[in-house]
């Protein structure tokens, strides 16, 4: 049943993205607002999938690559649902959906080809659960900061070109996008810090590769924030770095 929930959720995100693109192209408003509710519907099916997998394993469902990808998607969507409106970035969901769709398709393929099945823990370690879930929530925030970075670059390009296209009027002001990138970086770095601190209390200390990879991601984002806050680098390099940093964070996932 869990795979059905994941497929439904993935199809909803695909539908939401297609609907938003069609809406933006047609010139009709309204459907972009519907996107929020579609994201919420996709989120419910993500929750159902993760619940089923959690019950299967008897712990937080991040025991294999596919589950990790879905958990990151879940983090992206929950952060969008929670922060999209306060950050005045309703279009963030439209830009997030391709990422969520691709990750979930990869997860579906992975589970179809080789579902490792139940992996109950020998002993349940709440610190391990805390470490894993906080770290992946942090990845969600970093993912959204990268997406906000893409939106910034698109809007900056349109403003510089003197020939604003259709997206120009739908995208938020670049100041809001800059603020969103910084806030999401702060949220992500804070969550990752909590996750790393939790690792120090785990019954079984993480191996060196895991520790190095997590530490490297933390250092990259820490330096990025520090450079921005101290040197006040221009928003464009900040947006580029937010995108690159998320790419780097994704690469480290295979090590973790």
């Amino acid at each position, binding site marked *: 049943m869990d795979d059905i929930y994941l497929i439904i959720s993935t199809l909803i995100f695909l539908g939401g993205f297609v609907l938003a693109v069609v809406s933006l192209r*047609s*010139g*009709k*408003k*309204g459907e972009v607002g519907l996107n929020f509710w579609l994201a919420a519907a996709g989120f419910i099916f993500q929750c159902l999938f993760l619940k089923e997998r959690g019950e299967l394993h008897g712990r937080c469902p991040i025991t294999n690559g596919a589950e990790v990808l879905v958990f990151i998607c879940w983090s992206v969507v929950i952060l969008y649902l929670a922060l999209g409106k306060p950050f*005045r970035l309703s279009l963030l969901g439209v830009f997030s959906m391709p990422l969520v769709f691709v990750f979930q398709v990869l997860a579906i393929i992975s589970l179809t080809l080789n579902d490792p099945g139940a992996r109950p823990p020998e002993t349940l370690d709440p610190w391990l659960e805390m470490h894993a879930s906080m770290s992946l929530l942090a990845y969600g925030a970093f993912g959204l900061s990268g997406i906000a970075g893409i939106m910034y670059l698109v*809007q900056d390009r349109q*403003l*510089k070109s*003197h*020939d*604003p296209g259709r997206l*120009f*009027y739908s*995208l*938020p*002001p*670049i*100041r*809001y996008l*800059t603020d969103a990138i910084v806030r999401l970086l702060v949220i992500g770095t804070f969550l990752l810090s909590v996750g790393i601190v939790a690792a120090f209390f785990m019954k079984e200390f993480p191996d060196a590769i895991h520790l190095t990879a997590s530490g490297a991601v933390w250092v990259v984002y820490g330096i990025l924030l520090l450079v*921005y806050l101290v040197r*006040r*680098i*221009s*928003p*464009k*390099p*900040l947006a580029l770095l937010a995108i690159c940093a998320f790419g780097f964070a994704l690469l480290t996932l295979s090590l973790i």
Partner: protein
Amino acid sequence: MSIFCLGVNHKTAPVEIRERLAFVEKSIPEHLENIREIGSVDEAVVLSTCNRVEVYGAAERPGEALDRLVEYLVAHFEVSPDEVEFYRHEAEDAAHHLFEVASGLDSMVLGETEIFGQIKKAYATAQGSGATARRMNKLFQQSFSVGKLVRSNTRIQQGSTSVGAAAVDLAEKIFGNLGGCRVMILGAGEMSRVTAQSLQSRGAKSIIVSNRSYDKAEELAAELDGKAIHFDAWMHHLDQVDIVVSSTAAPHTVVHRDMVEKAVAGRRGHSLFLIDIAVPRDIEDEVNELDNVYLYNIDQLQKIADDGVERRKKQIEICRGVIHEFLEEKGIEALAEIPASRRQDGESSSSGKPSSSPLPNS
């Protein structure tokens, strides 16, 4: 009993005629009373704006009422029947016309919102004068619903339609809310004043004016509630402002890349928007290559305004589709017959009594 509309607008009559036909606001209740004494006219609403003069009404014999209304207007406003050609709409056509007017589709600036408030005011005046009953109440309330629906479901308001609006819209796409934005004006000409006022209307607060003639700078600064500075000092303020509007009469560029580069370095990542409305241009083109600096000249702003007009024109059919869908679902309530039972309860449209129907919230 049916509804009708009679009027002239910017498409059918020149301003010389429209200004002669314009109703003086305080005399509208008196006119409404006179109009309701014409033939079978039972209800009436007068909409009089810069771009249109229209009378909406309900009458037992709308054709005859329209003829008598033309006679009334021609006589009262002392215009010759040959000078003016009124458009006339009856029944569904009259309702469709009002719905398009309320949606901004019949406005000079396509999609503008001011007309919506003007219709509300016209209706409130008529309602306050006791000139409306069931049909006009239904018609105007439906027009408010349609106007809102069209604006919230289409992009008829999207894009700028003038150079000033384009500059302000771009500023909002860079800074969002202009509330905390600081503006510097170089050159105290008319274009600067208009652009600065547009920025002020969207919340820009602190305005610095610099001009070769300091007296003129002081004059404009006083008008804009800003501060005047000497022209040789403006570059020292460049790092403190968010928007620069330049329209000096200099025959060469006055704002150079190195000046802006130096100013941007001290702005701690804040964007700078430069609006060059001077001909010859005041600001070097290379300034736009700087990171986080956005430069627009008069031609680029004009192109955005032209594109905005085109974009809005393309929305007309989408808007009409929205109106059509609305009417398919709801019908024109003002044309619906009253059930006999309700008529006996005293809800006849030919009451002539003040309506108790409330104005909807905007």
